[in-house]
Protein backbone atom coordinates (compact mmCIF):
# COMPACT_ATOMS: atom_id res chain seq x y z
CA UNK A 1 0.00 0.00 0.00
CA UNK A 2 1.37 3.37 -0.96
CA UNK A 3 1.07 6.39 1.25
CA UNK A 4 -1.02 9.34 0.14
CA UNK A 5 0.95 12.26 -1.33
CA UNK A 6 -0.46 14.99 0.94
CA UNK A 7 -1.30 15.57 4.58
CA UNK A 8 -2.98 18.40 6.48
CA UNK A 9 -0.43 20.99 7.59
CA UNK A 10 -2.20 21.99 10.80
CA UNK A 11 -5.09 21.19 13.12
CA UNK A 12 -6.81 24.31 11.78
CA UNK A 13 -6.62 22.99 8.24
CA UNK A 14 -8.03 19.65 9.45
CA UNK A 15 -10.91 21.37 11.25
CA UNK A 16 -11.79 23.57 8.28
CA UNK A 17 -11.62 20.64 5.88
CA UNK A 18 -14.11 18.60 7.91
CA UNK A 19 -16.41 21.58 8.50
CA UNK A 20 -16.49 22.35 4.78
CA UNK A 21 -17.17 18.76 3.74
CA UNK A 22 -19.83 18.27 6.42
CA UNK A 23 -21.71 21.32 5.18
CA UNK A 24 -21.82 19.82 1.68
CA UNK A 25 -23.37 16.58 2.86
CA UNK A 26 -27.11 16.60 2.41
CA UNK A 27 -28.61 13.20 3.22
CA UNK A 28 -25.22 11.55 3.69
CA UNK A 29 -21.69 12.81 4.24
CA UNK A 30 -19.72 9.70 3.26
CA UNK A 31 -19.58 10.39 -0.50
CA UNK A 32 -18.31 13.90 0.26
CA UNK A 33 -15.58 12.58 2.59
CA UNK A 34 -14.38 10.28 -0.15
CA UNK A 35 -14.35 13.08 -2.74
CA UNK A 36 -12.68 15.67 -0.51
CA UNK A 37 -10.16 13.61 1.46
CA UNK A 38 -9.15 11.10 -1.21
CA UNK A 39 -9.73 12.74 -4.58
CA UNK A 40 -9.31 16.46 -3.95
CA UNK A 41 -6.93 16.84 -1.00
CA UNK A 42 -5.20 13.46 -1.47
CA UNK A 43 -4.72 12.88 2.24
CA UNK A 44 -5.48 9.16 1.73
CA UNK A 45 -5.32 6.66 -1.11
CA UNK A 46 -8.40 4.74 -2.24
CA UNK A 47 -7.07 1.56 -0.61
CA UNK A 48 -6.47 3.27 2.69
CA UNK A 49 -9.92 4.83 2.57
CA UNK A 50 -11.70 1.52 1.91
CA UNK A 51 -9.79 -0.20 4.70
CA UNK A 52 -10.56 2.50 7.28
CA UNK A 53 -14.18 2.62 6.12
CA UNK A 54 -14.59 -1.10 6.76
CA UNK A 55 -13.48 -0.67 10.35
CA UNK A 56 -15.56 2.50 10.84
CA UNK A 57 -18.64 0.65 9.61
CA UNK A 58 -18.06 -2.38 11.77
CA UNK A 59 -17.64 -0.53 15.03
CA UNK A 60 -20.54 1.01 16.95
CA UNK A 61 -21.05 4.71 16.44
CA UNK A 62 -22.05 6.95 13.55
CA UNK A 63 -20.02 5.70 10.58
CA UNK A 64 -18.82 9.05 9.30
CA UNK A 65 -17.89 10.21 12.81
CA UNK A 66 -15.87 7.03 13.27
CA UNK A 67 -14.14 7.63 9.95
CA UNK A 68 -13.26 11.21 10.88
CA UNK A 69 -11.73 9.98 14.16
CA UNK A 70 -9.46 7.56 12.32
CA UNK A 71 -8.41 10.10 9.69
CA UNK A 72 -7.72 12.80 12.29
CA UNK A 73 -5.79 10.49 14.59
CA UNK A 74 -3.62 9.24 11.79
CA UNK A 75 -2.19 12.73 11.19
CA UNK A 76 -2.22 14.32 14.65
CA UNK A 77 -2.97 11.54 17.15
CA UNK A 78 -5.68 12.02 19.74
CA UNK A 79 -5.83 15.79 19.18
CA UNK A 80 -6.35 15.22 15.48
CA UNK A 81 -9.18 12.78 16.14
CA UNK A 82 -10.97 15.27 18.40
CA UNK A 83 -10.46 18.15 15.96
CA UNK A 84 -11.75 16.18 12.96
CA UNK A 85 -14.85 15.04 14.87
CA UNK A 86 -15.53 18.58 16.10
CA UNK A 87 -15.13 19.92 12.58
CA UNK A 88 -17.64 17.39 11.35
CA UNK A 89 -20.23 18.21 14.05
CA UNK A 90 -19.91 21.73 15.46
CA UNK A 91 -21.04 24.05 12.67
CA UNK A 92 -23.57 21.57 11.19
CA UNK A 93 -25.08 21.16 14.68
CA UNK A 94 -25.62 24.92 14.89
CA UNK A 95 -27.29 24.82 11.46
CA UNK A 96 -29.58 21.94 12.44
CA UNK A 97 -30.58 23.51 15.76
CA UNK A 98 -31.26 26.83 14.02
CA UNK A 99 -33.46 25.10 11.44
CA UNK A 100 -35.22 23.19 14.22
CA UNK A 101 -35.88 26.41 16.15
CA UNK A 102 -37.18 28.23 13.09
CA UNK A 103 -39.41 25.27 12.37
CA UNK A 104 -40.85 25.12 15.90
CA UNK A 105 -42.11 28.71 15.49
CA UNK A 106 -44.02 27.79 12.35
CA UNK A 107 -45.07 24.26 13.25
CA UNK A 108 -48.67 25.37 13.87
CA UNK A 109 -48.93 26.50 10.26
CA UNK A 110 -50.71 23.68 8.38
CA UNK A 111 -48.55 23.97 5.24
CA UNK A 112 -45.29 23.87 7.22
CA UNK A 113 -46.53 20.96 9.32
CA UNK A 114 -47.68 19.19 6.14
CA UNK A 115 -44.32 19.74 4.45
CA UNK A 116 -42.46 18.20 7.35
CA UNK A 117 -44.92 15.31 7.50
CA UNK A 118 -44.13 14.62 3.86
CA UNK A 119 -40.39 14.84 4.49
CA UNK A 120 -40.67 12.51 7.48
CA UNK A 121 -42.46 9.94 5.32
CA UNK A 122 -39.66 10.16 2.74
CA UNK A 123 -37.02 9.87 5.49
CA UNK A 124 -38.69 6.70 6.81
CA UNK A 125 -38.63 5.23 3.31
CA UNK A 126 -34.97 6.18 2.95
CA UNK A 127 -33.98 4.29 6.07
CA UNK A 128 -35.83 1.16 4.92
CA UNK A 129 -34.16 1.47 1.51
CA UNK A 130 -30.73 1.63 3.15
CA UNK A 131 -31.53 -1.62 4.92
CA UNK A 132 -32.72 -3.25 1.68
CA UNK A 133 -29.58 -2.11 -0.16
CA UNK A 134 -27.42 -3.62 2.56
CA UNK A 135 -29.43 -6.86 2.38
CA UNK A 136 -28.10 -7.35 -1.17
CA UNK A 137 -24.63 -7.88 0.33
CA UNK A 138 -25.95 -10.94 2.19
CA UNK A 139 -25.59 -12.91 -1.05
CA UNK A 140 -21.82 -12.83 -0.54
CA UNK A 141 -22.17 -13.76 3.14
CA UNK A 142 -20.40 -16.92 4.36
CA UNK A 143 -23.72 -18.17 5.80
CA UNK A 144 -26.53 -19.41 3.50
CA UNK A 145 -28.97 -16.73 2.40
CA UNK A 146 -31.85 -18.56 4.15
CA UNK A 147 -30.04 -18.27 7.49
CA UNK A 148 -29.06 -14.60 7.20
CA UNK A 149 -32.50 -13.57 5.92
CA UNK A 150 -34.17 -15.52 8.76
CA UNK A 151 -31.99 -13.71 11.31
CA UNK A 152 -32.87 -10.37 9.73
CA UNK A 153 -36.60 -11.22 9.65
CA UNK A 154 -36.54 -12.33 13.29
CA UNK A 155 -34.85 -9.04 14.11
CA UNK A 156 -37.57 -7.00 12.41
CA UNK A 157 -40.33 -9.01 14.12
CA UNK A 158 -38.64 -8.62 17.49
CA UNK A 159 -38.03 -4.90 17.18
CA UNK A 160 -41.22 -3.83 15.40
CA UNK A 161 -43.89 -6.27 16.60
CA UNK A 162 -42.64 -7.44 19.99
CA UNK A 163 -40.78 -4.19 20.77
CA UNK A 164 -37.91 -5.94 22.52
CA UNK A 165 -35.07 -3.70 23.70
CA UNK A 166 -32.35 -3.42 21.09
CA UNK A 167 -29.63 -4.61 23.46
CA UNK A 168 -31.44 -7.96 23.81
CA UNK A 169 -31.78 -8.27 20.03
CA UNK A 170 -28.11 -7.41 19.57
CA UNK A 171 -26.96 -9.97 22.11
CA UNK A 172 -29.24 -12.82 21.02
CA UNK A 173 -29.55 -12.40 17.24
CA UNK A 174 -26.27 -10.56 16.64
CA UNK A 175 -24.47 -13.05 18.86
CA UNK A 176 -26.06 -15.99 17.01
CA UNK A 177 -24.96 -14.48 13.70
CA UNK A 178 -21.39 -14.03 14.91
CA UNK A 179 -21.10 -17.54 16.34
CA UNK A 180 -22.57 -19.18 13.22
CA UNK A 181 -20.29 -17.13 10.97
CA UNK A 182 -17.27 -17.98 13.10
CA UNK A 183 -17.96 -21.69 12.70
CA UNK A 184 -18.44 -21.28 8.97
CA UNK A 185 -15.20 -19.38 8.36
CA UNK A 186 -12.21 -21.64 7.91
CA UNK A 187 -9.41 -20.86 10.33
Amino acid sequence: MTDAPNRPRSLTELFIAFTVLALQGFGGVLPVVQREIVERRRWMTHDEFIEEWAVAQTMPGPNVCNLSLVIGSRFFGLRGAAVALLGLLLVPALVVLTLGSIYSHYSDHPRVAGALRGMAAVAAGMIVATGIKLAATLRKHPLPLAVTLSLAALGVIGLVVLRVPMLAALLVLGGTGCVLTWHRLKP
Partner: protein
Amino acid sequence: MSADVVSQPLQIALAWHDWLDLFVHYLVISLMSVGGTIATTAEMHRYLVEQHGWLTQTQFNDSIAIAQAAPGPNVLFVALMGWNVGLNAGSYAAAVLGVVVTMVGALLPSSVLMLLAANWGHRNRELRLVRAFKQGMAPLVIAMLVSTGIILGSANGNFATDWPLYAVSVAAALVIWRTRIHLLWLLAAGALLGALGWL
Protein backbone atom coordinates in the same frame (compact mmCIF):
# COMPACT_ATOMS: atom_id res chain seq x y z
CA MET B 1 -43.89 30.45 32.39
CA SER B 2 -42.59 31.93 29.16
CA ALA B 3 -44.44 32.12 25.87
CA ASP B 4 -42.00 29.64 24.34
CA VAL B 5 -43.09 26.97 26.76
CA VAL B 6 -46.74 27.55 25.99
CA SER B 7 -46.15 26.89 22.29
CA GLN B 8 -44.60 23.53 23.12
CA PRO B 9 -46.98 20.59 22.95
CA LEU B 10 -45.45 18.93 25.97
CA GLN B 11 -44.44 20.14 29.43
CA ILE B 12 -42.32 17.84 31.48
CA ALA B 13 -40.19 18.12 34.59
CA LEU B 14 -36.78 16.50 34.58
CA ALA B 15 -34.96 15.91 37.85
CA TRP B 16 -31.20 15.45 37.94
CA HIS B 17 -31.56 11.69 38.05
CA ASP B 18 -33.67 11.85 34.88
CA TRP B 19 -30.81 13.65 33.09
CA LEU B 20 -28.43 11.01 34.42
CA ASP B 21 -30.78 8.28 33.20
CA LEU B 22 -30.92 9.95 29.78
CA PHE B 23 -27.12 10.16 29.66
CA VAL B 24 -26.65 6.53 30.67
CA HIS B 25 -29.25 5.44 28.13
CA TYR B 26 -27.35 7.21 25.36
CA LEU B 27 -24.08 5.68 26.53
CA VAL B 28 -25.70 2.26 26.06
CA ILE B 29 -27.21 3.30 22.72
CA SER B 30 -23.74 4.37 21.61
CA LEU B 31 -22.41 0.88 22.23
CA MET B 32 -25.37 -0.66 20.38
CA SER B 33 -25.08 1.58 17.34
CA VAL B 34 -23.42 -0.94 15.06
CA GLY B 35 -24.50 0.13 11.59
CA GLY B 36 -24.80 3.77 12.59
CA THR B 37 -26.77 5.73 15.14
CA ILE B 38 -29.81 5.88 12.88
CA ALA B 39 -30.14 2.10 13.31
CA THR B 40 -30.83 2.60 17.03
CA THR B 41 -33.74 4.96 16.41
CA ALA B 42 -36.22 2.25 17.34
CA GLU B 43 -34.61 2.07 20.78
CA MET B 44 -34.66 5.86 21.21
CA HIS B 45 -38.33 5.86 20.28
CA ARG B 46 -39.09 3.16 22.82
CA TYR B 47 -37.26 5.13 25.52
CA LEU B 48 -38.10 8.78 24.79
CA VAL B 49 -41.64 8.51 23.42
CA GLU B 50 -43.17 5.27 24.73
CA GLN B 51 -41.52 4.74 28.09
CA HIS B 52 -40.91 8.28 29.41
CA GLY B 53 -43.06 10.54 27.27
CA TRP B 54 -40.28 13.13 27.06
CA LEU B 55 -40.88 13.72 23.36
CA THR B 56 -44.10 13.70 21.35
CA GLN B 57 -44.35 11.43 18.35
CA THR B 58 -44.40 14.51 16.13
CA GLN B 59 -41.27 15.99 17.70
CA PHE B 60 -39.53 12.66 17.32
CA ASN B 61 -40.33 12.36 13.62
CA ASP B 62 -39.66 16.05 12.93
CA SER B 63 -36.21 15.84 14.55
CA ILE B 64 -35.23 13.12 12.12
CA ALA B 65 -36.78 14.81 9.11
CA ILE B 66 -35.09 18.17 9.82
CA ALA B 67 -31.69 16.56 10.41
CA GLN B 68 -32.03 14.60 7.16
CA ALA B 69 -32.90 17.71 5.20
CA ALA B 70 -30.08 19.78 6.74
CA PRO B 71 -26.41 19.46 5.79
CA GLY B 72 -24.08 17.48 8.02
CA PRO B 73 -23.97 13.97 9.44
CA ASN B 74 -27.37 12.37 10.04
CA VAL B 75 -26.41 11.71 13.67
CA LEU B 76 -27.32 15.33 14.39
CA PHE B 77 -30.93 14.19 14.76
CA VAL B 78 -29.73 13.12 18.23
CA ALA B 79 -28.79 16.72 19.03
CA LEU B 80 -32.20 17.91 17.89
CA MET B 81 -33.99 15.32 20.04
CA GLY B 82 -31.92 16.36 23.06
CA TRP B 83 -32.72 20.00 22.29
CA ASN B 84 -36.45 19.23 22.12
CA VAL B 85 -36.42 17.24 25.37
CA GLY B 86 -34.80 20.26 27.04
CA LEU B 87 -37.33 22.67 25.53
CA ASN B 88 -40.14 20.44 26.80
CA ALA B 89 -38.52 20.70 30.21
CA GLY B 90 -38.99 24.42 29.98
CA SER B 91 -35.88 26.42 29.09
CA TYR B 92 -33.15 27.06 26.53
CA ALA B 93 -30.56 26.21 29.17
CA ALA B 94 -32.18 22.78 29.52
CA ALA B 95 -32.22 22.50 25.73
CA VAL B 96 -28.46 23.08 25.56
CA LEU B 97 -28.01 20.56 28.39
CA GLY B 98 -30.14 18.12 26.40
CA VAL B 99 -27.89 18.49 23.34
CA VAL B 100 -24.73 17.97 25.38
CA VAL B 101 -26.10 14.99 27.33
CA THR B 102 -27.42 13.13 24.28
CA MET B 103 -24.57 13.91 21.87
CA VAL B 104 -21.74 13.22 24.33
CA GLY B 105 -23.56 10.08 25.46
CA ALA B 106 -24.12 8.88 21.90
CA LEU B 107 -20.54 9.53 20.80
CA LEU B 108 -18.19 8.99 23.73
CA PRO B 109 -18.14 5.19 24.16
CA SER B 110 -18.24 4.48 20.44
CA SER B 111 -15.44 6.98 19.75
CA VAL B 112 -13.15 5.51 22.39
CA LEU B 113 -13.85 2.00 21.08
CA MET B 114 -13.29 3.13 17.51
CA LEU B 115 -9.87 4.59 18.25
CA LEU B 116 -8.81 1.48 20.16
CA ALA B 117 -10.16 -0.83 17.48
CA ALA B 118 -8.70 1.10 14.56
CA ASN B 119 -5.21 0.24 15.72
CA TRP B 120 -5.95 -3.28 16.83
CA GLY B 121 -8.16 -4.16 13.86
CA HIS B 122 -5.60 -2.85 11.42
CA ARG B 123 -2.96 -5.15 12.82
CA ASN B 124 -5.30 -8.19 12.99
CA ARG B 125 -7.58 -7.74 10.00
CA GLU B 126 -7.13 -11.30 8.76
CA LEU B 127 -8.10 -12.80 12.13
CA ARG B 128 -11.08 -15.20 12.06
CA LEU B 129 -12.64 -13.49 15.08
CA VAL B 130 -12.56 -10.06 13.40
CA ARG B 131 -14.13 -11.38 10.21
CA ALA B 132 -16.77 -13.36 12.13
CA PHE B 133 -17.85 -10.26 14.05
CA LYS B 134 -17.88 -8.05 10.96
CA GLN B 135 -20.00 -10.42 8.88
CA GLY B 136 -22.01 -12.06 11.65
CA MET B 137 -23.55 -8.74 12.67
CA ALA B 138 -24.74 -7.96 9.13
CA PRO B 139 -28.24 -9.57 9.32
CA LEU B 140 -29.11 -7.75 12.55
CA VAL B 141 -27.76 -4.42 11.28
CA ILE B 142 -30.14 -4.78 8.32
CA ALA B 143 -33.03 -5.69 10.65
CA MET B 144 -32.29 -2.63 12.80
CA LEU B 145 -32.42 -0.29 9.82
CA VAL B 146 -35.61 -1.77 8.37
CA SER B 147 -37.28 -1.70 11.80
CA THR B 148 -36.35 1.92 12.31
CA GLY B 149 -37.91 2.87 8.99
CA ILE B 150 -41.08 0.89 9.69
CA ILE B 151 -41.53 2.39 13.16
CA LEU B 152 -41.05 5.91 11.81
CA GLY B 153 -43.30 5.28 8.84
CA SER B 154 -46.11 3.60 10.77
CA ALA B 155 -46.12 6.15 13.59
CA ASN B 156 -49.11 7.93 12.09
CA GLY B 157 -51.44 5.32 13.49
CA ASN B 158 -54.63 5.47 11.52
CA PHE B 159 -54.24 3.71 8.19
CA ALA B 160 -57.68 4.80 6.90
CA THR B 161 -56.73 8.48 6.98
CA ASP B 162 -52.95 8.31 6.74
CA TRP B 163 -52.55 5.89 3.83
CA PRO B 164 -51.05 8.60 1.57
CA LEU B 165 -48.14 8.95 4.03
CA TYR B 166 -47.54 5.20 3.90
CA ALA B 167 -47.70 5.35 0.11
CA VAL B 168 -45.05 8.11 0.08
CA SER B 169 -42.78 6.09 2.39
CA VAL B 170 -43.07 2.98 0.24
CA ALA B 171 -42.56 4.95 -2.97
CA ALA B 172 -39.52 6.73 -1.52
CA ALA B 173 -38.02 3.42 -0.39
CA LEU B 174 -38.51 1.91 -3.87
CA VAL B 175 -37.06 4.94 -5.69
CA ILE B 176 -34.00 5.14 -3.40
CA TRP B 177 -33.47 1.40 -3.62
CA ARG B 178 -33.70 1.31 -7.41
CA THR B 179 -32.18 4.63 -8.53
CA ARG B 180 -29.28 6.89 -7.64
CA ILE B 181 -31.41 10.01 -7.41
CA HIS B 182 -30.22 12.60 -4.90
CA LEU B 183 -32.14 12.37 -1.63
CA LEU B 184 -32.82 16.11 -1.62
CA TRP B 185 -35.13 15.80 -4.63
CA LEU B 186 -37.23 13.22 -2.79
CA LEU B 187 -37.32 15.26 0.42
CA ALA B 188 -38.37 18.28 -1.63
CA ALA B 189 -41.10 16.25 -3.34
CA GLY B 190 -42.35 15.00 0.03
CA ALA B 191 -42.33 18.55 1.40
CA LEU B 192 -44.26 19.81 -1.64
CA LEU B 193 -46.93 17.10 -1.41
CA GLY B 194 -47.31 17.83 2.30
CA ALA B 195 -47.44 21.60 1.85
CA LEU B 196 -50.14 21.21 -0.79
CA GLY B 197 -52.20 19.41 1.80
CA TRP B 198 -52.24 16.04 0.06
CA LEU B 199 -50.70 14.15 2.97
